[in-house]
């Protein structure tokens, strides 16, 4: 698995699928989904996003399991 920081190289479908297997499908353009016009006027995060930090390692493991 390669770690890529920044948006210059997009995640592959396999990588996205692996992340979604843990977090569920992305709900907005801000969390990896299709960028929609509504994303330009509202976003949610903060406490609710940080409450999912414990999922970071499971997500990394899921990506590693899928991609190698």
């Amino acid at each position, binding site marked *: 698995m390669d770690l890529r920081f920044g948006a210059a190289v997009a995640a592959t479908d396999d990588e996205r699928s692996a992340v979604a297997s843990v977090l569920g499908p992305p709900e907005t353009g801000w969390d990896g989904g299709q960028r929609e016009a509504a994303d*330009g*006027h509202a976003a949610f995060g*903060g406490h609710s996003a940080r409450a999912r930090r414990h999922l970071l390692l499971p997500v990394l493991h899921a990506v590693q399991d899928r991609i190698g």
Partner: protein
Amino acid sequence: MFGAGGGTCSYQEAEDADLLVLWGSNAREAHPIFFHHVLKGVRRGARLYAVDPRRTTSAQWADAWLGIEVGSDISLANAIAREIIAAGLVNEDFVRRATTGFEAYAASVEPYSLQRAERDTGVPADLIRRLAHDYARADRAQICWTLGITEHHNAADNVFALINLALLTGHVGRYGSGLVPLRGQNNVQGGGDMGAIPNKLTGFQDIETDLAARARFEAAYGAPVPPRRGWHLSQMFDAMEAGELTACYIVGENPVRSEADTGRASKLLGGLKHLVVQDMFRNDTAELADVVLPATATWCEAEGTVTSSERRVQRVRKALEPPPGTRDDIEIIFDIARRLGTDWGRPSAEELWNELRTLSPMHAGMSYRRLEELGGIQWPCPDEQHPGELFLHARLWEEDPARRGAPAPFTPVEQEAPLDELSEQFPLRLTTGRRLDSFNTGVQSGQYATPIRRPETINLSPEDASSLGLAEGEVARVSSRRGSVQAPVHVDETLRAGLAFMTLHFPEQVATNVLTLDAWDPKSGTAEFKATAIRVDKPAATATGDDESQHEKVGA
């Protein structure tokens, strides 16, 4: 606010608040010290809302970001007020005892339904409603703002709209609740406190209506104080244009680069009969000057004070010997007085401060010794036993009407669109702002390297960059009704289609303020830096990229 030009809260209160609203404030980059306090509050459980056209690095910390259209702040604030009233969440005791004008205010916000606000701001009505309810129901809530509120042609009305919300909910005059105007530049608070505003003497004593204060100054100085307010900066440029202002003495400011519509500003400054510039750097304004007075760096080569956005006066100490040929600001000003025939002696910074304390009641208790001992003191501090005020306007909560004093007025305000209208020729909205690594026109911060600095860019949404056929790093031509510059493109996912962003930090590379509009708010004198109509094109193949081509005028 309510008679004094300062925020009502202390920074530490952000740590104990239940809800914080950053409104037109990218505090993480523009006020990193304050933002540390915000983060402490967030880690203790405070909910954070961000209201900003861009999803800034501050907004990325927020529980919810309201990405409003540029200049739609009043529509949003009035809709929040209307919802608070409709939901029965008004702090009725506070409104009845401590305010005036509620009925007229309630009537004025009635047309601002959530649906209208959604149309004006682009923010979903449900989210506006959620902010309204969370703000009104919070025990301790603050609204914090910066230049996103004040750099508009209706800046004062924007501020009134936010003050109205605090009055409606009683979120003022109590620990943890309040209104926090984060100042646009270092020591703006101190400058205003010292009387560097056209209508106030030192300590916010009104030059036209406070006759006793004026008499005190006249007695102390042995000279009359003009009984009329002076010009603010925007009026000075209008006066230059009218031929009424022909000489200017500029201290620590670079208006050739920092003014909106710098083409006009440069022309007017260049046309003065006499221009004096006193600065620690030979900036672009100094290049136009008849006389340049090299000054020391006041933050490390001179003694004095500085005042933060929480009204805290702090000592500044001389840590370094200044370079040869530079002089302390006090020395320069007093030497000029001497050459004009008035010998004011050679006072130290502390002696001048003590003179000020005799004239400004809110600073009277702030001796240098106490400023050292207490790590700074927040005004007002009327005597040497007083610790300074952690927060202002506690009087509004007093039961006794005599102790409560004058009530705080609601001020109805109406939504107005930005003056620089979008059109077919100029279809994009440019908003300007700051970055963490740089300060204003870069005169000071451009002198050192930092690994996080990157050159100026025209930031475009992925959608706009794609539709314009512009790629990351490609040079684009950016034009407004006042001029044109060239800048590399940065594709910025924090922007939505139709919104663009630039800073003013790198005028040698890109003179951003060639583009901006110098229409100003008649109440505050602030120009509308935040809302410029632009178009972005691929530059003509013949463009050379030199300075002349970057600043050309468009014939609009």
